[in-house]
């Protein structure tokens, strides 16, 4: 007997299983997002935007009105929609290349203006769709196709602290958190709070989700888990970084 998998109500079921690689983190993040949308009962109001990179494979993922934009440009497309129709709830979903590299000026611009949109960045430490190149989030020593001898921080910098940067520049009313596919209940909670922040019109909301790419990491299940829980966790701390009405979390708090 085969047990039907439980899918969020906001998912499209007619085109599942999804198009991501086995072991990919996107499916898990989008499951958390789907649950958050279900629980908030906002399916009729959400406009979902996805980027270039693996995230584009989600252009028909949900039972949500969806726009697939260019690399890094999902943020301004969602900004444009939100400014034109403030009653809609706009989600920009992208990878770390789209969010922190080619589209970082849009992310910064949206955060500075406190755009009432929700941006979700899946951080898998490299460019996955294009075959595993160095990203701003690549860990020191991590081998990628464009850092075949391992990332040298002296030459290419340290892993980019995207969520912390957004927290530093976003105004009061913004919500910033970092979750992980290794802690799904927590991630769902963060996504729900981020969307709630948009619903309440407080300001910008941002969630980075630590994700997995066993295809490019060349890891098995145990290795994938270890990379997220041990290696990535050493650079990217899970938790809420900025919550409206609360004192900002600091490193020594």
């Amino acid at each position, binding site marked *: 007997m085969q047990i039907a998998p439980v899918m969020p109500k906001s998912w*499209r079921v007619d085109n599942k299983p999804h198009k991501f690689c086995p072991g990919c983190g996107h499916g898990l993040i989008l499951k958390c997002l789907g649950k958050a949308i279900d629980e908030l009962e906002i399916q009729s109001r959400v406009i979902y935007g996805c980027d270039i990179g693996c995230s584009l494979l989600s252009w028909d993922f949900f039972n949500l*009105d969806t726009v697939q934009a*260019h690399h890094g440009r999902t943020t301004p497309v969602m900004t444009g929609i939100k400014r*034109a129709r403030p009653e809609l709830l706009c989600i920009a979903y992208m990878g770390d290349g789209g969010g922190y590299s080619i589209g970082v000026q*849009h992310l910064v611009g949206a955060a500075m203006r406190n755009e009432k949109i929700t941006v979700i960045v899946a951080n898998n430490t490299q460019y996955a769709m294009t075959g595993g190149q160095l990203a701003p989030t690549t860990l020191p020593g991590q081998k990628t196709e464009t850092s075949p001898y391992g990332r040298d921080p002296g030459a290419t910098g340290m892993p980019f602290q995207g969520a912390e940067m957004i927290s530093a520049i976003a105004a009061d009313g913004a919500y910033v958190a970092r979750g992980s596919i290794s802690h799904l209940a927590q991630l769902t909670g963060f996504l729900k709070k981020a969307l709630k922040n948009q619903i309440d019109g407080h300001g910008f909301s941002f969630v980075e989700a630590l994700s997995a790419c066993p295809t490019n990491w060349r890891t098995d299940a145990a290795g994938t888990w270890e990379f997220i829980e041990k290696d990535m966790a050493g650079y990217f701390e899970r938790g809420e970084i900025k919550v409206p009405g609360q004192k900002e979390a600091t490193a020594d708090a």
Partner: protein
Amino acid sequence: MSEELVIEEKRVFMTGNEVVAWAALAAGADIMYGYPITPQNEVMHYWSRLAPRYGKNFLQTEDELSAGFATAGGVMAGRKAFTATAGSGSVLMQEPMAMVEMMRLPTVTVVQQRGGPSTATVIYSQQEVALTTMGGNGEGMRVVYSTAGHQDLYDYTIKAFNSAWKYRFPAFVLGDGYQAKMREPLTIYEPEKRGITLLEPEPYVGREGKPGQDRPPAQYRNTYNLEEELYEKLMSDIRDFEKISAEIAEYESMHTEGAELVIIAHGIVFRAVGEAVSNLREQGLRVGGFRPVTLRPLPAAQIKDLVAGVKKILVVESAYGQMARLLKETACGAPCEIHTMFKPGVGIAAEEVEEKAKEILHSQ
């Protein structure tokens, strides 16, 4: 509370950028997304002053990429959104416009050409013809109106909104720094009172009802998996564009019938050409003038007719042959002599055109 917009038909004396802002209001634009670049800035200045008065919006974005993509978003949300840019801003604008072209979104972009390449001058040129007609990694499925003055800026900005929403291709109003910054008299009016029906925008996303339950989700992409899948989509768009091309194409001609020499120019350069043609006619010389108003699609049938019946043509432009290349492609195989007067990034006066025309006529 916002006021109701009433544009009384009257003569006004304005800069071209102010004209564009009023024309966008007259066309029923809801929101402008823009980024500063000279000589386009005052479109934003006037719009951002006028917009709130009439319950309309403005957003200054972080760059032209964002302005273009946000414009696409505004359009998808069901609003009449527009943007304006120039020079290196036009270069950045090509990325969003490629997406707009692919997704068949009705956007309006006003381009006030400045000197190029690179930063060059903030003043004037006709060097953004290739970019505006064929920019982006696509097939140039765009509607481009090249204006020759302030009345044109008003009329064709209004028309660009209607063409964009009617045909679902991106529309461009191609002006220049002279038109942007100088003042000219023109008549402003409410389009409806002139019998122009303004098309209402429709939302692509965010319609009534729960997607997947009350209606299918509206899902738009610009990515395709297979060559054949892309080919089919593109050929369908190309066929649409070709079908409507003759309907969209516009031109202006003067004394072309029986002319020995026809001078071809677009935009503000045609003002000098028009004056030159009148002067040469007064001197008894058989000279005519032709101006493609739409550079994309070109008035191809009229150009083919023209070059088939004339011995010589002179192409004049403030660029090094950007329009001439488009003309030559259309006129390919015509037996007429093609002379050129290219002054990239520099204004052209009637006297110079006259002199050049005489030189050509006397060089048999």
